[in-house]
């Protein structure tokens, strides 16, 4: 039995269905992420859990108890807002003490609890400051400390790191993981940033158009995307679509327009003639100058059309004779050498039948 049970929740705004029949069970102590592009319904779903939105249909249960009719102030959950929503007229201490005062905590216990919460978010000594005297990262910590101080059953985080710069964001990600482990509170985290979701979560629900496209562990989401949307949204991916031409011994051959036949290992029992998609990560593709040697199952000769030097890796976009473009990635293991190939170089791209992932459509 899951701690937080979302059952067939639908939320409409006029004609627009923001959340469409979503069912998710979130376990106690889990770091759960709702991931999707803006407008996919993830924030609406989070606000529905918090009680700011009322579902048009469906139920939300916490420890088996239906939360319908309970306003946000009477739900044992806390939300961390994207804008932090710190009270500007209160100090850090005042902000963190606020939920305790609302919960009628005896005055004598408040200061100790505030101090403990500030220690949890590594803000000792900042208690007397006002929000406008803090940096973005510090404000974020105050917001999290304020939400955690009453030890809620669930912490809801709405894109909490979106406003921070890249380096700070990475630091805060590690801190969030550690904090969640430390306090053991269930986190429900909303983000549009797939790397953030992959790095932080125990499980991810990828949402699109109000629906959950896939609910799985990060490695499964990345390695075995169940739909074309998930494959495309999570990381970079080459997607080859076409009808199934042949199948033998668990290997399917897909006739991809502008490329040719592509072989892929799969246990899918899709009949011949039906459409399928192969999702292939750029890092799974070998790119070389075409020296003879082992020849994997799929190999094509093409020309480098574009390249993107990223520091640790270089991304090559290779044009095929049929017109398709394949993205491949090569680690720049040799320092000082920006790239192995130049635009216009003839190269060979190849991959094994087990390298990609077959998506039935």
């Amino acid at each position, binding site marked *: 039995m899951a701690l937080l049970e979302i059952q067939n929740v639908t939320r409409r705004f006029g004609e627009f269905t923001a959340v469409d029949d979503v069912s998710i069970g979130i376990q106690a102590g889990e770091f759960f992420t709702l991931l999707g592009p803006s407008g996919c319904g993830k924030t609406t779903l989070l606000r529905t859990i918090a009680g700011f939105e009322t579902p048009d249909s469906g139920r939300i249960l916490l420890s088996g108890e239906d939360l319908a009719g309970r306003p946000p102030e009477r739900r044992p959950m806390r939300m961390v*807002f994207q804008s932090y*929503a710190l009270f500007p*007229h209160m100090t850090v201490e005042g902000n963190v003490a606020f939920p305790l005062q609302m919960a009628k905590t005896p005055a004598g216990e408040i200061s100790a609890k505030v101090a403990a919460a500030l220690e949890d978010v590594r803000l000792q000594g900042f208690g007397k400051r006002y929000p406008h005297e803090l940096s973005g990262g510090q404000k974020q910590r105050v917001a999290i400390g*304020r939400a955690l101080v*009453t030890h809620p059953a669930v912490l809801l985080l709405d894109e909490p790191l979106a406003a921070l710069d890249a380096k700070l964001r990475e630091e805060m990600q590690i801190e969030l993981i550690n904090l969640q482990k430390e306090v053991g509170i269930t986190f429900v985290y909303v983000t549009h940033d797939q790397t953030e979701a992959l790095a932080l979560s125990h499980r991810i629900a990828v949402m699109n158009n109000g629906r959950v496209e896939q609910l799985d562990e990060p490695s499964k989401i990345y390695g075995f995307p169940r739909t074309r949307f998930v494959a495309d949204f999570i990381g970079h991916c080459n997607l080859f679509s076409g009808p199934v031409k042949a199948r033998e011994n668990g290997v399917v051959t897909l006739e991809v327009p502008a490329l040719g036949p592509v072989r892929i290992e799969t246990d899918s029992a899709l009949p011949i003639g039906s459409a399928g998609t192969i999702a292939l990560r750029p890092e799974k593709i070998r790119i070389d100058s075409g020296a003879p040697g082992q020849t994997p199952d799929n190999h094509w000769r093409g020309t480098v059309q574009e390249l993107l030097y990223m520091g640790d890796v270089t991304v090559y976009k290779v044009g095929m004779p049929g017109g398709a473009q394949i993205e491949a990635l090569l680690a720049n293991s040799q320092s000082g050498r920006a790239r192995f190939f130049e635009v216009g170089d003839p190269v060979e791209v190849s991959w094994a039948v087990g390298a990609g992932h077959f998506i039935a459509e």
Partner: protein
Amino acid sequence: MLYLVVFFAIPSLIMVLASFRTPGEFGGLAPLYEEGRLDLNLDSYARFFEETIYARIFVKSVVYALVTTFCCLLLAYPLAALIARSSKRYRDLLLLLVILPFWSNFLIRIYAWMIILGPNAALARAVNGVLAWFGHEPVPLLFSAFAVLVCLVYVSLPFMVLPLYANLEKHDPALLEAAQDLGASAWQRFWRITFPLSLPGVYAGGALVFIPALGIFAIPDILGGPEDSLIGNVIKQQFLETRDWPFGSVLSIVLTVAALAIAGLAAWVARGNLATPSSARQARA
């Protein structure tokens, strides 16, 4: 700066100087130089402190102004909050309605209240009808302190609504959601978040209502009874009827100083309050 000098400093100086001079035989001011010496004295000031009637009228004026300010605050706050929360389309319309009275003449609006509060108007009949039920004597609404206060509140209300609206409109709705999420009831959200954050608007509106209300003379003249003369009426009387300019100047100076002192006090309290809200709260807890 020049603007301040021309329109504020010079008139004030003229008034201060006048307050030390002797009233002229037929009103106005006696010549400044008489028989080769400066004629400056404290007679008018002495009179203010000796004749307690003026101090009493002065205190009464302050009380009227305070009551007016408080009533305006109570009436304006819900209205300003409503306007700030309504959609853009209705917001402009509502604001227009708030400032609409300014399109008609100030005195006409006061005379309108004369009709509304008049003894044969529906309001007076209704009130006295109810009072008769309880066996009470009929009361006149017009020419009373009640009429003065109602009209003071009426003419001052937009000056409270507008600064409050300007403040409330800037509030981040996420703060109220956060407070609610953190367990605050509707009343706690208002009292702990909205109201403290709106204090600058409250002070601005309070000053805009209190200071003019303190010096007003037209409303008590028209709607008040003989007992409802305020300091503004007395000043007007001194200048226009008694023609005792020095004493009128003294009263004006006392009024200006009092208004500045009260405004300064309010600002000081406000700053003290804002600087240490959490310590003040902890002291209360």
